[in-house]
């Protein structure tokens, strides 16, 4: 946004940045030379931002196929002496956990910063795991900003720590940090080094057992030095004074500071920990001096609480330590729940109890829905029809992506959703254990297929687990904001790249029935799916179909940017009978029922996909603004 305030020295500008953009700028200012990531909310914009500036600052940036590969690539670059960054959502770290767990044994030559963006309250995730545990158990230090304002500086500190110790560092963020916006001062980077060198050192980097045993001792020794270092950094500090101590982990600090203002209290000591793993024990002991009682305020799990209790036992100190007794373990921190916890602990009145009453009005829910023109809608519509016609009992092994919304009415075509790739994976188990009247149907997106769908597909062919695999190929990773992937034909900065075709992979994996269809053509789609189901019934083998149509959100926004007119459709009211198929069974948000039950198409929402033309039994939907060749060319 253009409210950029140029300050006197023209090198520094204050701009409003998204938290993730601030992390990206911290990396640029630290001189990052290599960036690899797989998208995942709330981490995605870190690398989207870095991709935007890659042509200017000349570091390497890529969307990797999954988090494991992303981490390995960044790790390799760091072994070659480059400052590297990888970013992922919290569950992405599970995928990358194998190389992560050994990276601390070897350390690196340059620096390796792993951004883990956790999602307390599960705004867009399947769990709310607390990735500080990864730091503890893999011997990797964890840094987290004390408030959104610290995001950029804590990022440069993560690079600094990693460079000094030659050790990986986890920079933890959470939804509320990554998706906050704050004014940030940014400056031009001093030096970007994207080329490294390789010095042979297999005793360090080839972790055969005899090497690993030695490396483990060295790692623990580094771990102690890191703890020592964290006792003396600006982001870990003691503030104020009093006989009560609050220890904060990461951005819990911001809620504690704000809460104490509401409670009008100043005779309290705060130990702010933004580098909390490993626990800087000397600093904690110093903070405890003259204190009668301790409250640990941390989001999610009682990690610091447990570490502090264990420290007190070792030191033979007997002061009460509280944490989860007052601060919730489930969901994100809010000013409300921190204030409630503090009021209770301090025996004060909760200051925000006077709330207005909202009863008497029943509010309809407003869940997210598939967008107008979403090709997934056509696929689900055709899939349901084909399944009904084939009389199989479907078990929809679903997966993660925009198409997870197929769980909702009227499609209800997701019976299981666990993790990326889990669709084909779980269907392997269903296929071998359910009788043949059931048909396991794995539903998986294109990006998810590349991420972790290929190995379970090979497994299904190898161990012969008959199933229908439906790949919804909308050409990009849509859920996280339309990043390209290996099937898109573009790289992270939207230059042409080698395109890898899903149908080629499926055939090479030994799938004999592989067909591609266009989900905008509903009848044809239904026919292809039905054919696949019949093939499975007759041959007892895997069949795979691919619904290929680009994401309508991406195409319509490209059209708007390029000034290409978007076609629309309208309802011929003489022919419309008000049967409701288009708005009740097809549920395009652009088609709205009128008072008399007849349909109306909101042209400001319609993107002209034309799917509704085929599903209307009365041929009542007709073009109002026809397709142009320019618009046609945008869909790839």
């Amino acid at each position, binding site marked *: *946004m253009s*409210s950029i305030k140029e300050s006197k020295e023209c090198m520094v500008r204050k701009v*409003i940045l998204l938290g993730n953009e601030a992390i990206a700028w911290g990396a640029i200012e630290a001189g990052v030379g290599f960036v690899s990531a797989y998208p995942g909310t709330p981490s995605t914009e870190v690398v989207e931002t870095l991709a935007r500036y890659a042509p200017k600052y000349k570091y390497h940036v890529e969307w990797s196929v999954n988090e494991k590969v992303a981490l390995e690539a960044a790790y390799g670059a760091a072994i070659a002496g480059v400052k590297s960054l990888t970013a992922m959502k919290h569950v992405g770290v599970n995928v990358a956990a194998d190389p992560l767990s050994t990276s601390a044994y070897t350390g690196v030559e340059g620096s390796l910063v792993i951004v883990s963006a956790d999602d307390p309250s599960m705004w867009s995730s399947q769990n709310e795991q607390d990735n500080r545990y990864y730091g503890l158990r893999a011997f990797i230090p964890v840094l987290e900003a004390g408030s959104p304002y610290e995001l950029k500086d804590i990022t440069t500190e993560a690079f600094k720590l990693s460079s000094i110790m030659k050790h990986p560092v986890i920079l933890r963020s959470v939804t509320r940090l990554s*998706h906050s916006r*704050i004014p940030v001062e940014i400056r031009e980077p001093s030096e970007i080094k994207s080329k490294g060198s390789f010095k042979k050192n297999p005793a360090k980097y080839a972790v055969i057992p005899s090497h690993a045993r030695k490396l483990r001792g060295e790692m623990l020794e580094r771990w102690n030095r890191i703890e020592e270092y964290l006792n003396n950094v600006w982001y870990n500090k003691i503030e104020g004074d009093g006989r009560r101590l609050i220890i904060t982990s990461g951005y819990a600090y911001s809620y504690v500071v*704000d809460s104490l203002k*509401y409670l009008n209290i100043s005779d309290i000591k705060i130990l702010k920990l933004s580098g909390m793993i490993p626990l800087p024990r000397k600093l904690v002991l110093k903070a405890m001096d003259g204190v009668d009682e301790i409250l640990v305020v941390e989001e999610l799990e009682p990690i610091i609480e447990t570490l502090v209790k264990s420290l007190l036992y070792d030191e033979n100190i007997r002061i009460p330590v509280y944490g989860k007794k007052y601060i919730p373990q489930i969901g994100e921190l809010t000013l409300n729940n921190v204030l409630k916890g503090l009021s209770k602990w301090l025996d004060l009145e909760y200051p925000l109890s006077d709330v207005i009453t909202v009863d008497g*009005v029943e509010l309809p829910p407003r869940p*997210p829905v598939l967008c107008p023109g979403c090709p997934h809608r056509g696929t689900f519509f055709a899939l349901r029809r084909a399944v009904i016609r084939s009389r199989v009992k479907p078990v929809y092994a679903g997966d993660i992506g925009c198409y997870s919304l197929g769980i909702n009415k009227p499609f209800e075509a997701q019976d299981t959703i666990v993790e990326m790739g889990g669709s084909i994976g779980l269907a392997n188990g269903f296929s071998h254990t359910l009788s043949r009247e059931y048909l396991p149907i794995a539903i998986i997106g294109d990006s998810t297929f590349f991420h972790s769908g290929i190995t379970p597909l090979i497994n299904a062919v190898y161990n012969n687990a008959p199933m229908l695999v439906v790949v919804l190929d909308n050409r990009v990773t849509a859920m996280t904001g339309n990043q390209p992937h290996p099937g898109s034909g573009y790289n992270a900065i939207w230059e042409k790249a080698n395109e890898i075709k899903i149908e080629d992979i499926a055939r090479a994996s030994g799938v004999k029935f592989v067909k591609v269809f266009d989900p905008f053509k509903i009848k044809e789609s239904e026919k292809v799916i039905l054919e696949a189901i019949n093939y499975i019934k007759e041959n007892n083998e895997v069949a795979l179909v691919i619904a290929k149509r680009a994401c309508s959100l991406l195409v319509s926004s490209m059209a708007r940017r390029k000034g290409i007119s978007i076609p629309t459709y309208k309802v011929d009211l003489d022919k419309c009978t008000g049967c409701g198929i288009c708005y009740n069974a097809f549920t395009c948000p652009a088609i709205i029922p009128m008072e008399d039950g007849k349909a109306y198409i909101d042209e400001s929402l319609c993107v002209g996909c034309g799917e509704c033309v085929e599903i209307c039994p009365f041929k009542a939907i007709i073009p109002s603004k026809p397709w142009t060749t320019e618009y046609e060319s945008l869909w790839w």
Partner: protein
Amino acid sequence: MEYNVILAGVGGQGLITLARVIASTLLMNNVNSIIAETHGMSQRGGSVNVHIRVGDALSPLSPVGGTHMLVGLELIEAVRAAKYIRRDGIVLLNNYILKPGIPGVKMPSREELISVFKENNLRYYIIPAQKLAKEAGNVIVANIVMFGAMVALNEISGLDKSAAKEVLSGLRFKEINLRAFELGYKYVLEEFK
């Protein structure tokens, strides 16, 4: 000093743009603010809340029962977010109801929705932002009409007209946005002051 705002509406209504315009205007006057928003699932036509904490606050979320101003871009969502507002808070409402995109939902009436604010004796202002936005050239700028109305209320220090217009001048559809801003601004002055 802190001043807490919450914007409530539906994904696609331009809530994040509105929040950025507010924060940018404040920054022109050297006032800091923190915006908090959720991406991902909420974008696909779901309900969206954006929190803005103006001034000294360090933490990202406006408190339930402690928010000074609620700006509702859609009435159902405004009521859903009503719990955030303080008793002495101000409510700015776009007079607009958007039906959720799921089949067969029971809809509350406009009167029922507005009565929540009336019965709690809150200071509320109803703005025909959709209509004014159309007048400005495109319904899409209803968010900026609401911004004009916010500035006209003159409740948040640092949110003044000249800085606001400077920020809007840097946006892509500058003319339409400036017109929308003026219409919202004028509406409040003429109807409520």
